């Protein structure tokens, strides 16, 4: 299984006794070259896992920041194949950091499930999150991914009751992504008090590490989540740095990576601070 990279990373985090930091960036945002520079800088800035968004014209579950990032990626000409090529370029220089592709089903359907799974495996992708492909519809895609040893990472949400969780975590591996608020990306912030028991429930149902995302904008917030989750995901706040850099006519990579460093430092320090 190529989920080996994901499993190894979470095992290492457990040994270190800390949560991981998952950085979401959009392929081709704002250009292919700058996106590659950002990707290559992410591990050094403290990203333990990379979520690489592939642009889609109709991102129904995204808030404005990631909608705009997708528009920039499309404008830069990043197709799904282009995203895989970008990931392959990153993989040449880094064989340890897990890369999870994240996006919507139609570009994958358009490429074909089997062709996509083969190409993703060849590009060094470890897993896939498809926002609009719930378990009920995931059979054919999961079959294709299984054949290539790729994991279809599942999303659990505040609306997932125990019955639903059983369905959500069937046929998955690597980790589970807990969407901490009912809503789109980058808008609402969850009550921390509600996150801890939810993470515990998802862990119990899946037997897998749980990454928590949606609404993580500040180091303080990242640290709060890091105390209760196995990993913390930030995305909107990072692609907003791309937008801000473009507005200020500054290089994008240094700005994005500085934000990654601030957030990942907070995640790394979270449990230490707690025990002190």
């Amino acid at each position: 299984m190529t989920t080996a990279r994901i499993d190894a990373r979470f095992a290492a985090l457990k040994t270190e006794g800390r949560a991981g930091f998952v950085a979401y960036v959009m392929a081709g945002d704002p250009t292919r070259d700058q996106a590659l520079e950002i990707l290559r800088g992410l591990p050094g800035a403290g990203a333990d896992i990379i979520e690489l968004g592939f642009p889609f014209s109709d991102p129904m579950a995204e808030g404005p920041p990631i909608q705009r990032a997708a528009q920039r990626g499309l404008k830069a000409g990043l197709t799904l194949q282009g995203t895989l090529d970008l990931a392959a370029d990153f993989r040449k220089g880094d064989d340890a950091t897990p890369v999870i592709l994240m996006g919507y089903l139609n570009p994958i359907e358009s490429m074909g499930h089997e062709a996509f799974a083969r190409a993703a495996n060849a590009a060094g992708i470890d897993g896939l999150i498809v926002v609009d492909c719930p378990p009920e519809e995931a059979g054919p895609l999961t079959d294709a991914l299984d054949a290539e040893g790729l994991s279809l990472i599942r999303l659990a949400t505040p609306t997932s009751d125990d019955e639903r969780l059983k369905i959500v975590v069937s046929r998955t591996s690597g980790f589970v992504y807990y969407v901490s608020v009912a809503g789109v990306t980058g808008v609402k912030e969850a009550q921390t008090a509600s996150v801890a028991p939810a993470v515990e429930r998802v862990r119990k149902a899946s037997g897998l590490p749980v990454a928590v995302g949606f609404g993580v904008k500040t180091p303080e917030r990242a640290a709060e989540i890091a105390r209760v989750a196995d990993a913390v995901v930030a995305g909107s706040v990072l692609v907003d740095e791309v937008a801000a850099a473009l507005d200020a006519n500054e290089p994008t990579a240094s700005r994005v990576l500085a934000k990654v460093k601030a957030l990942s430092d907070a995640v790394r320090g979270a449990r230490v601070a707690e025990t002190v």
Partner: protein
Amino acid sequence: MTLVALMNAPLSNAPLTNAYAWPDDKGRFGPYGGQFVAETLMPLIHELDAAYTATKADPTFQAELDGFLTHYVGRASPLYFAERLTDHFGGARVWLKREDLNHTGAHKINNCMGQILLARRMGKTRIIAETGAGQHGVASATVCARFGLPCTVYMGAVDVERQQPNVFRMKLMGAEVTPVTAGAATLKDAMNEAMRDWVTNVEDTYYIIGTAAGPHPYPAMVRDFQSVIGREIKVQSMDQIGRLPDAVVACIGGGSNAIGAFHPFVDDEGVRLIGVEAAGHGLDTPDHAASLKGGRPGVLHGNRTYLLQDPDGQIVEGHSISAGLDYPGIGPEHAWLHDIGRAEYLSATDEEALEAFQLCSKLEGIIPALEPSHALARVAEVAKAVGKDGDIVLLMSGRGDKDIFTVAKHLGVNL
């Protein structure tokens, strides 16, 4: 169904007697349909499916709906013999099913009335809807005003600009109209934004989708609520023609008026079912909205169906002179009826629709909406093919008052 039974069939939403029994228990019409939504919405979709299944079997619900359709919407709508159009085309007799005479001026109200009664039964206290031309937005605002529920309508900013009278109508009835600037700022973007609202307000909000598309159960539910059109056509045909028509012709955007007209006839093999898509500037140009004839299967807005898309699977904008038809997808049941060959799908260009719009106005004193003008544009050929002894029903899905500015502009008239 025997003739006598047909004649005696009540104009209600009683279960259909078709042997054709799609969708299946997964909400699929063959390979189309399904439930492709964010995980947060899955429990809500299941809740809606269960609520709809229970409600449609409840006679008190059907009686309540029938009451409002009769006394508020003004059903049954007439089946009118268009004598002068018939003479003009020189073929089969042409009948107009007058959905344009419904309250709010289009077929959209049939579905909104059904869904608002369901939303009330589910205890939902806030309504959202998407709209393109504004017809579904107006129908949603109408039923929300009638039942005292707050209503937010998402509408592409471009559409808000070009459909000001409908925006004003919605506001008069107390709805909040939210312009959507994302993407191309038209119907598909309004639908994206409505989905984003729904996923954010899962506790109290009911989403009235306006066409027979979206995640299951919407395609089946919207079809069922619109099937009152086809059931009435059946009864009225038996009464006025003495037999079923040879063909039923309807325009297709998402396709809710067409599926409502077609569905009760699916098992009646002698009745040709003909959908007319919007060919915009022509199917050989990029500027059309014909998902079946110019698209290919994919997944968008919760269902698998034919979509206008580029080779990478990015959705492309539909174009039509009619804001009600420029959606880049089509209801999944039409995709299935197309593939199995039970319905035929043709197309008409902007120019052809404009000609038909004027023809109907002049010959019948009925100003049609631009949407059914597309269907009327194909009736000449169909009438000839069916022949003088035959009968064709054209679904007049809405009235054209909303379109007079667009048409005037194209005719070079300054209003």
